[in-house]
């Protein structure tokens, strides 16, 4: 399970509340049948009486203790096993100050696991790392989490990290959980414009009017009119993902396919894909197709998409 959302929206606060470092105003926190917090019943167990392992954002390794002493602080029984499993046995005598970011994270994980917790909490587990070590550490963390078979809640501001590390993703904004679903479901049916744009989608604001045959027609603020297979009326957002947009030099032959035309404002290659921006809309196409079409900055193109992919979402006024 991952909680994603922009910085300062209360993701870390949720973890601190679960760990018992901060008491929520109301609500209930329980692991299985074990109630840790219940505002109405005035239950508030201290952190040491909750079966949690919390990995802090900057890892918070005790600087005055060796790696071994850090790990055994939580529980001495499984220290050697954990050091070996996380591949840090050779660092046992080192002080945290001498370790790399990835090594620190493994020590922090070993320490959190030493207590044999019922749930593992990870606060921005990858944000303290350099870009070039990040991918490797993410893969290691992925393997570890799947091997552990332990419920884990991780907090991140990066949707890519969340999809890589979690089965279910909760999108949290301004302290409210907007939507909880598997990553594919969030993309297929984003509940609102924020979820759509956070998961990588384009969101276009406009005014919708229902069509007699079903679906809706949306007059976009940017000018064009598009059709959606989904119902909607009044102010809405239309969400469409870059990989659902087709880049074409000619307008669509068939009626009923949405098209937004304009000059290419920017071209950004990403591996064997190219991201093409027209106005506020970003499309993604195969690098070979881009070459075949002779796309360059300023080329006049049509971005085509199926009304089935034009999802109607609640609008969010983004500043």
């Amino acid at each position: 399970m991952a909680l994603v959302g922009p910085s300062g929206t209360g993701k870390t606060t949720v973890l601190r509340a679960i760990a018992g470092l901060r008491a929520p105003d109301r609500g209930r926190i329980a692991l299985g049948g074990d109630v840790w917090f219940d505002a109405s019943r005035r239950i508030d167990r201290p952190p040491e009486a909750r079966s949690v392992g919390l990995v802090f954002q900057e890892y918070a390794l005790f600087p005055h203790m060796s790696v071994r002493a850090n790990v055994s602080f939580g529980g001495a029984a499984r220290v050697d096993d954990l050091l070996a499993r996380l591949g840090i046995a050779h660092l046992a005598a080192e002080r945290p100050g001498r370790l790399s970011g990835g090594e620190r994270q493994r020590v922090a994980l070993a320490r959190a696991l030493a207590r044999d917790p019922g749930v593992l909490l990870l606060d921005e587990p990858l944000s303290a790392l350099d870009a070039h070590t990040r991918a490797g550490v993410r893969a290691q963390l992925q393997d570890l989490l799947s091997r552990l078979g332990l419920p884990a809640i991780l907090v991140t501001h990066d949707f890519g990290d969340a999809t890589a590390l979690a089965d279910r993703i909760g999108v949290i904004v301004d302290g409210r959980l907007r939507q909880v679903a598997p990553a594919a479901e969030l993309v297929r049916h984003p509940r609102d414009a924020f979820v759509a744009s956070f998961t990588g989608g384009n969101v276009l604001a406009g005014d919708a009017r229902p069509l007699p045959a079903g679906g809706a027609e949306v007059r976009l603020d940017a000018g064009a009119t598009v059709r959606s297979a989904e119902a909607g009326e009044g102010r809405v957002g239309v969400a469409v993902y870059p990989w659902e947009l087709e880049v074409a030099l000619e307008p669509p032959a068939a009626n009923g396919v949405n098209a937004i035309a304009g000059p290419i404002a920017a071209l950004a290659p990403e591996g064997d894909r190219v991201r093409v921006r027209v106005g506020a809309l970003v499309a993604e196409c195969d690098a070979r197709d881009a070459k075949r079409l002779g796309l360059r900055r300023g080329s006049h193109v049509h971005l085509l998409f199926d009304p089935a992919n034009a999802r109607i979402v609640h609008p969010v006024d983004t500043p």
Partner: protein
Amino acid sequence: MQPPRAGAGTVAFTGILALATGVGLTFLALPLVALFTEVPIGDVPSLLGDAAVRDAIAVTARTNAIANVLIVGAGTPVAYLLATRSFPGRTLAITLVELPLVLPPAVAGIGLLAAFGAGGLAGAPLGDAGIVLPFTEWAVVLAVTFVASPFYVRQAIAAFAAVDPAYVDAARTLGASPARTFARISLPLAAAGLLAGWVLAFARGVGEFGATIVFAGNVRGETQTLTLAIYEQLDASFDVALSIGILLVVLSGSVLLSYKLLSSWRRSSSTSPAPFARTSSTSA
């Protein structure tokens, strides 16, 4: 013409700084040099063998040992509470802790006398219980504790406050009780700062004069500490007074030096900060 004039200005300014520094350092060093030149250094051991000096050394050692135990023993939990919890009246409590720093020592002495003297606020019930404090060795202990404690407590508050709360939180989520967290995390991480505070309090305690002479008097073998002995020996034997001065300079100097050596060794061998130079200037 412009660059040479600017250069001359810079040289003049640097000259003024150097002159002021030279005058200042000479002024600070002169009394120390004089102590060692006014009396033949070979005579110092025999002068310190004087019975009055031996008594004063014993009184100073006993009273300061007890006072330092009281200061560190009671001051550490006080500082930890003030540094890590917020509660109404916290600012007032911190101000009270710091008050002896600015209070004239003689005022501290007369205050202690008013509080613990016969018929005083605390003195009356103590007297009923058969405990009389003024003009006893315990009065010296109280005077030293009162005057020297803020040097330790202030530094200790800063040291505990500098411990990253994430370490404390981490210890709690790893199953440590608040008491174990204090002993294993906060105390070791604040140790360098606590030691710096203790050095300052120790030096201030050994040098205590004003509060002691008012509250405890100047009775040889009972309340006469080394500083009070200097005062008395001014009339009896100037050389003995100078010898005591040399003893105290060597003591303070070696405490400061050993602390500095210790802290630089700690800095190079561990990650915990050793803040003497940085914090002593703000607290002394």
